[in-house]
Every structure is written in structure tokens, then in C-alpha cells.
């Protein structure tokens, strides 16, 4: 057995530790004596491990994992691009990394400046009047945006009546979930021709009970909505607001601005488009940009500039309130600003153009081996269908598993729901032609294997640290807590050195 693959609590032993601290120069007294009457817990059983044991443990975990630093990660809609290391370095500068969220405005001018400037450049990139950087992810951004829309309807005396949100079936799955969290009702409308929005269906669904229309642009098929101006016009004429899900902003930067198209609110996933580390649960950041009429409702506090000095303004009577403690995930905001300033306006639009070019290159090449349900030029991602492989007894899931053997993370599978056996592929702009070709060759070989050796695909992956997992059983028989194996030596509770 690989020793490093044990849990930390199963490694080391009593007294194993990293730094050796000198003995305490004041006499020790029991905690219970110092805090009488307080319900103190007993000693906790922490792992006791030396520095090399800790290092090896986490290096081993990083080897077991697939991540963007190891190989291509074409996970559709997630924009798993390379995150330039200089952004981490800048975020690690002591002035940022050690700044305290409770420090006074006076002593936080640098950190406030970073957030203030980031809000300004995001507003410029998206074409909106103002931005909040509090929300910590796209879905929280969606909810923050909907809260502001609700506050706006309430301010006009229509809050009680307008409780429906129209969401096309090509939208992100989080949209209906955000609507539900507000206690509102989702009205799903089917896609029309070319899987883009059906204006007739939209018009039929609009009315005096509709609070908002949510549109994902480009949509989950990677297609640009060609009739956005009509959507925003129809929605506004019916008294509704239009929300743009900006998860796919990577295709649009420097090419078009949602604010100019008539959208009222959008969120931006900094951890996708603006290249901050993500995957494995974050942290991310989902700033929300709003048009002028929604500015009073932004989460408080907001940063204001007076006489060249920045300060937090809490006097925001119409604000929807805080949506995150302190300033959101500040380290992510630093990375995003560093990325934006490094690329500049030209670099950012080249980023989007290259993302679109890479996706179209792969799409045309793979359309020879897989079904391509929507053959229009795509934006930054595209959706193939694995249903042509069904006759060999092979599913999209098998293709996804087999890709792992080629050192590539699987694409998003079985989403969007409107394509059967869907494979949603987003190469991003940071993959070279050589890497794109490697991915395409792997996909072509897998299509060939489906015909000639389908049993390989059904058994895949063959070379990963863990073979195919029983996902059904893993979800049905949850084991949420580690228990000591019987007969194992009891690891001693942490003892203090005197």
C-alpha cells in the first residue's frame, strides 16, 4: 500500500511535529482553572505528523487529482483555462495577503483601491453602470441580481405581483435554482430554431406577473443569441427585467457589451473568464454588474471615492443588504485585476477570439467522428452527441471515462439536457494547437474503439489511480465519517511539551 494514501490521522505518531518551540517561560496552569464555569471540551485528537510526512501526503493527493496544471480540462461552461502564476504571486504580496478586513478605511487604501478599480474595469468591460464584488460565486451572483430585481419591482409597487421568471431550456441549470431560492416560480420556455430563444414562446409567457427573463449568452450550446435586442425590448415593454447569466463571458470580452444590448443585470464569474484558480470548490467570485436604475439596490457597503480617498459607505437605505462577510473573496479579486491589467483591452479581446477559434477548430474536426446536433459556428464551446455510439453499446459516459486514460479531463457530459448523450467541450484559449490536436486524436481513437473494441470503453478508465467508480452506490450508501479501523493502535491525543 502507498503509505501516503492513508489519511493524515493514520500517519505519524505521538510527538511527531514540524517546528520545535522552546518551552513556555511562564508556568502552565490548567485551562479549567483559568476559565472556571466554562464548558470546555476534552483534548482533540489531531494528527501528529512531521513536516516531510505532511509534504508527501499533499503532494501525493495532488498527483492523484487531475488539474489544469497537469493536463487539458475541456469542461464545458466551466472555462478551465490556465491561471497565470504571476497573479498568485501578486495576491500573495504581504500588503494584500496580510490585510485585515476590520482595518480602518484609512489603513486599507491599497486593498480598497484594488476592489474599486476592479469594479470600474468590470463595468467598462460589461457596459454597466456599477458593480458589486461581494458575491462569492456565479450562483450567489444570480441570487444577488434577482434580489435587486425584486427590490426594484417593490420600489414600483409591483413586488407582490411579479413572481415569475422566464428561463429558456438552453440556460444554465443554476438559473431555476436561484429563482426557487427567492420563492419565485420558473417558467421554462423551449428553444426555437437553431436552439436559440423562441420569441413567440417568450412573448406568450410575458405578462404582468413576470419579474424577469434570464438569458445565458452564449447559451449552453455555445451559440450566440442573435435576437437579444428583441428579447430585451419585449421584456421591458412587459415591465420585466432582463438578467444575463455571464458564465460564458469568456466568448464576449472586447467583442460586445451586455449593458449595451439592454440587459439590466449580469453576473461575472471571475474564476472562469478572469482566470483565477477554481475547481474543487473554490473560492470563486461572482461580481454582479447593474444598469443605472438598479444601482441604489447594490449590496452594502459600497466603496466611494472622496478627495482621492476611498471609504466604505454604509448609508444605503435601499440596498438589498450584505451578501457576504467583509469584502467577498478578496484574494480572487486581486488576481482578476492583475489578469485584466496584464492583458489590457487588446489582449482581452484576443483572449475571447482565440477561445472561439479553438472551439470551432475542434468542433469541425470532431464532427467527422461524432454527431454535431447544431452545426452553426460556435462561440467558446460546442456540444457533440454520443448517441451515434449507442449501436455499439457505448454511452457518452464511457467516452468521458476513457478520455482520462489520455491525460485529459472529461468534458461536461449529459448537459445541456436538450441534447441526447451530450458532450459539452470548452477548450479555452490557453491550449496550443499541439494540445488541441492531442485531444482531437484521443477523441477520434475513442470513436474508433467504440466500433472495434467497445469493451475497452465500458471498462475505462484503465490507467487512473482509481478505476471506474460505482457512482450509484456512492450516492446511495453515504459514508460521511471516518471511523478508526478495529484493532488499530489508538493515536494518542496531542500532548503539550513542557
Amino acid at each position, binding site marked *: 500500500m502507498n503509505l501516503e494514501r492513508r489519511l493524515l490521522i493514520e500517519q505519524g505518531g505521538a510527538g511527531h511535529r514540524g517546528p520545535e518551540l522552546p518551552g513556555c517561560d511562564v508556568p502552565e496552569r490548567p485551562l479549567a482553572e483559568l476559565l472556571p464555569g466554562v464548558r470546555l471540551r476534552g483534548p482533540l485528537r489531531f494528527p501528529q505528523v512531521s513536516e516531510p510526512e505532511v509534504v508527501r501526503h499533499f503532494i501525493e493527493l495532488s498527483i492523484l487529482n487531475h488539474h489544469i496544471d497537469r493536463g487539458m480540462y475541456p469542461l464545458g461552461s466551466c472555462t478551465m483555462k490556465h491561471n497565470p502564476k504571476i497573479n498568485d504571486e501578486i495576491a500573495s504580496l504581504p500588503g494584500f495577503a496580510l490585510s485585515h478586513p476590520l482595518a480602518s478605511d484609512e489603513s486599507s487604501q491599497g486593498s480598497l483601491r484594488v476592489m474599486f478599480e476592479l469594479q470600474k474595469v468590470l463595468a467598462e468591460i460589461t457596459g454597466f453602470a456599477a458593480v458589486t464584488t461581494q458575491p462569492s460565486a456565479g450562483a450567489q451572483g444570480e441570487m444577488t441580481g434577482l434580489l435587486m430585481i425584486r427590490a426594484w419591482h417593490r420600489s414600483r409597487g409591483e413586488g407582490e405581483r411579479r413572481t415569475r421568471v422566464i428561463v429558456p431550456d438552453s440556460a444554465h441549470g443554476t438559473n431555476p435554482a436561484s429563482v426557487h431560492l427567492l420563492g419565485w416560480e420558473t417558467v421554462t420556455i423551449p428553444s426555437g430554431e437553431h436552439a436559440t430563444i423562441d420569441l413567440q414562446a417568450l412573448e406568450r409567457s410575458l405578462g404582468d406577473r413576470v419579474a424577469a427573463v434570464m438569458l445565458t449568452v452564449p447559451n449552453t450550446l455555445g451559440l450566440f443569441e442573435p435576437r437579444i435586442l428583441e428579447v430585451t425590448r419585449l421584456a421591458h415593454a412587459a415591465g420585466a427585467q432582463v438578467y444575463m447569466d455571464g458564465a460564458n463571458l469568456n466568448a464576449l470580452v472586447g467583442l460586445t457589451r451586455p449593458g449595451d444590448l439592454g440587459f439590466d443585470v449580469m453576473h461575472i464569474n471571475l474564476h472562469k473568464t478572469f482566470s483565477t484558480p477554481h475547481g474543487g470548490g473554490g473560492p470563486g467570485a461572482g461580481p454582479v454588474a447593474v444598469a443605472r436604475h438598479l444601482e441604489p439596490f447594490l449590496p452594502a457597503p459600497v466603496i466611494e471615492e472622496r478627495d482621492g480617498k476611498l471609504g466604505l459607505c454604509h448609508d444605503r437605505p435601499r440596498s438589498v443588504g450584505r451578501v457576504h462577510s467583509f469584502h467577498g473573496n478578496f484574494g480572487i479579486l486581486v488576481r482578476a485585476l492583475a489578469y485584466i491589467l496584464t492583458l489590457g483591452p487588446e489582449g482581452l479581446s484576443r483572449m475571447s477570439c482565440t477561445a472561439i477559434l479553438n472551439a470551432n477548430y475542434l468542433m469541425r474536426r470532431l464532427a467527422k467522428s461524432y454527431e454535431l446536433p447544431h452545426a452553426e459556428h460556435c462561440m467558446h464551446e460546442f456540444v457533440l452527441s454520443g*448517441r451515434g455510439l449507442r449501436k455499439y453499446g457505448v454511452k457518452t*459516459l464511457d467516452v468521458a471515462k476513457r478520455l482520462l486514460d489520455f491525460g485529459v479531463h472529461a468534458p461536461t*457530459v*449529459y*448537459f445541456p*439536457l436538450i441534447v*441526447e448523450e451530450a458532450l459539452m467541450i470548452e477548450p479555452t484559449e490557453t491550449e496550443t494547437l499541439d494540445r488541441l490536436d492531442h485531444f482531437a486524436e484521443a477523441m477520434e481513437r475513442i470513436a474508433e474503439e467504440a466500433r472495434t473494441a467497445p469493451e475497452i470503453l465500458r471498462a475505462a478508465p484503465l490507467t487512473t489511480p482509481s478505476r471506474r467508480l460505482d*457512482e*450509484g*452506490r456512492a*450516492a*446511495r450508501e453515504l459514508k460521511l465519517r471516518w471511523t478508526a479501523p478495529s484493532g488499530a493502535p489508538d493515536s494518542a491525543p496531542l500532548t503539550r511539551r513542557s
Partner: protein
Amino acid sequence: MGYPEDVRYTAEHEWARLEGGVVTIGITSYATEQLGDVVFVELPEVGRMLEAMKPFGVVEAVKTVSDLYAPLGGRVIEVNSALADNPALVNQEPFGEGWMIRLRPAKAADLQKLMTGPEYEKMIEEHQG
């Protein structure tokens, strides 16, 4: 492949079987193939009134989460409590032990509006092109 002919079908892949004035409802084998391993089924409370073609529950599978639609309206008189401990029944016997709810229909004649086995099979074939 053939679907049972003693039940009627919806376009949302539910089936309904009328026996002695009570309608038993579940999802089809095609639905379970599409969903993959079912890991959780959320069902309504006994006594709730269901509206035809409105969601009455949720089926959660490894691949996706999907609403369940009532093939016809009526009052829920029983739910399959065995699914709480063993949701795999839905995969193993979608037309049998994997049933989901029983209801007393508001209008039993509405069953005739649903698809027959051959009609449902035809719809699936057309969908698969």
C-alpha cells in the same frame, strides 16, 4: 423493445395503471435508462391533490435530477415507501416494485387520453431518429 400494454404513457416518460378505481404511477424503463442509477426519489404526502401534468415529485439520478409529472389529476392515497431505503428498485423494476405513487383519479376516463404501449414506443423511436 416493447413496452407493457396494460399501462398508459406520458410524453414525460411516466406510466399509469388503472386497477379497481386506483391508478398506480411510475416511470418507464426508457426513463431509467436515460437517467442512469436512481439515488433518491422525492414523493408527495398521502392526501395531496395532484393536478394533471404538473410536477408531483423529483427523481434524482447520478446523471441528472428530473421532475415527475402526474399523468392525471387526483388524490394521493399511497406512496411507495420502499423507495426511501432502496431507490435502485426504480432501475430494477420500473413497471413493478419500482412504482412511485397510487392515486384516486379525479376523472379515470382521462387515462384514455394517454399513449398506449405501441404509441409510446413509436414516440421513442422517432425521438431517437
